[in-house]
């Protein structure tokens, strides 16, 4: 990090990553569910000024433990330091960068588009073309669901842009590592 002559991208309120080094990383953090424990994890993520893209928090298969999935846009050196900072939190039992292990990443998205008799048919076709299924329809709107990679989610949203999107709800990524090959 030091003695660096590389230009940095100034990102207000976030770390200044050396130019061209920013990448999206997915960190998996397992933390014992105690008062203040999740706050500490989020506190470190925010205080270290990492550019947080998504954060999901769900109970782990082990009772009394939360599994936090955080997608962070930053440089590798910053991520390594961030991991060490997270590791220091007493209630954190495990933390790793999903890229360091074979991992499956999935995200759930619900997209609702406005529709009438004229547009409904082509909207449904566009959504299905992008891999989504229709989960609800009314006279005014069609709602799609998709489970897939972040890229597939983006594709669906792009495909539906020509229609009037009323609302998008994304779950953020969930990651499973170990005993999986590729994606």
């Amino acid at each position, binding site marked *: *990090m030091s*003695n660096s002559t590389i230009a940095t991208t100034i990102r207000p309120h976030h770390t200044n990553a050396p130019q061209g080094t920013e990448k999206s990383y997915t960190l998996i953090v397992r933390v014992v569910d105690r*008062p*203040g424990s999740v706050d500490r994890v989020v506190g470190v993520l925010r205080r270290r000024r990492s550019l947080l893209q998504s954060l999901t928090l769900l109970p782990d298969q082990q009772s009394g433990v939360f599994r936090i999935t955080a997608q962070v846009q930053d440089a590798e050196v910053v991520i390594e330091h961030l991991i060490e900072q997270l590791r*220091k939190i007493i*209630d954190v039992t495990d933390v790793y960068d999903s890229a360091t292990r074979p991992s499956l990443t999935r995200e759930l998205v619900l997209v609702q588009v406005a529709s009438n008799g004229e547009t409904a048919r082509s909207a449904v076709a566009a959504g299905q073309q992008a891999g989504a299924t229709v989960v609800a329809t009314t006279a005014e709107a069609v709602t799609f669901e998709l489970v897939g990679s972040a890229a597939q989610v983006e594709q669906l949203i792009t495909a539906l842009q020509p229609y009037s999107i009323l609302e998008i709800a994304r779950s953020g990524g969930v990651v499973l590592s170990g005993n999986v090959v590729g994606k």
Partner: protein
Amino acid sequence: MAIAAKDIQQAGTANQTGQQNDEIRELTGTEIMCEVLVREGVDVLYGYPGGAIMPFYDALTSYPALHHVLTRHEQGASHAADGYARATGKVGVCVATSGPGATNLVTGLATAFMDSVPVVALTGQVARAFLGRDAFQETDILGVTQPITKHNFLVRNIEELAPIMHEAFRIARSGRPGPVLVDVPKDVQNAKAVYRADDHITSEEYLDSLAAHTQAPAQHLLLEAAELIAQAKRPIILAGHGIILSKAYAELKAFAEKTSIPVITTLLGLSAFADTHPLHIGMPGMHGPAHTNRSIGEADLLVAVGMRFDDRVTGDVKQFATRAKLIHIDIDASEIHKVKAATVPIVSDARVALTALTETVQPADRSAWLQEIRSWEAANDERGRQIKRNDDIPDPISILSAIHKETDGEAIVVSDVGQHQMWTARFYEWTRLNSHITSGGLGTMGFALPAALGVKMGMPDAPVWAVAGDGGIQMNIQELATLQQEGVTIKVAIMNNGYLGMVRQWQQFFHSRNYSETPMTGPDHVKLADAYGLKGIRVKRREDVESAVREAMETPGTVIVEFIIEPEANVYPMVAPGNGITDMIEETTVQENAENE
């Protein structure tokens, strides 16, 4: 009541010695807290009672082994616990009630956190039924102290109280030490449960078993480090607080002597390595002497042990030690590569790493490098220049020399924050190990007086001097009453220049002498001492400095000695913030500028 208390105490004693009979008795939460404190070896705690912590104070009188010191402000309690911990290496304990009591601990906890000091803070909390309802004196102290504690706990039920209390001590002491806060709702304090000592290991037992399993750093790292050291022509050791925390004094000395590498001690590393040792070459950074900073600039290798490259040490990082490779030894993995990328990173306790490294390296002679540094030092004669100014009024060097002389160098010196802190760091001759105590990372004005109380109680046989400015001494002046009530004897030196001196100095250098809100008048410190039942001495002439210090040492009880020093004395040299550390403002440069104006 008296009989019940006696029974409880006997139960406690039985537990302590592991001779408890089969009869299982239930204890209240507060009795469990006291039992754990006794088993953890706590002999003194600093605190202040109030509503939500009253059950604890009720139980406390049944535990004479726990000596409670009533400070006059919770901030004083947290600094006293910190000072006690720094002096003894044990865990310092402070106690406060909920709400304002707990928030008053914040500055002390932040101070201990920045300087890695093991402190356990016990706070009362409103009863669980009132949590989150904005009850009287309710504060989310877990949220407040989250970024300034190593860890904190809210005790949710009586069953987890004992395990949490022991864990708090374990966390505070192990690895990189730090403050831990335990927040105990009032109804949990009053609840009852069985406490069996045998069910819990103490932090001492935990650390012992940890030490038994501690391995030396990986062999390939030691060999790489030894190779870098063997190749280095101009290596420097940067020794920090980690040396003191792991008591690695002898190991540092052995390593430095075998390799003949000159040693720089950081502000918190001062007194980890004797100033008088031929290899010692000073303190680095913003107010370090020119030859010390220059040696870092010229170095081809830094061996940094238990230090974290604070910005006051590095100045502009891009200009810091540009020619040097780095062997970085720290117990906290998150410190490695944080500021300066390490060539060889060694995550380890300082003592363990230095022992292994000393065995691995080859002896070497580097006297030419040391002589070169000494020649820069001799050419500068900074100390000589400082003492020649205004020779009729007390000056910082004569005050500090007098304290050293009158205590045979045996004093523990606790400094506050500001100009006097830098003068003390630079011009007191640190010969006694771990004799320099100061708030380094946080830079907490008001630290010295309450911390000195804790230091003295931890080291009752050592003379203890608190050194403060006329600004900082006011920030916790109320603790004079605590010293008086406890009969604890320290000596207090106030360097009075009638200014917030360090801010004034920055205003002089960087804000065109616009002395905005830095001139200050204070109380009559002699009368003030008298009001607290203590002796006060005022010194206005240089020739009286030594006799005043001697009089203070010869007078029983706490004594305040106020030295009226030059109002606009500066700390030289100085590196302007943001500059490289070899780019220094020297006294001569400033005088020339003044003459040219």
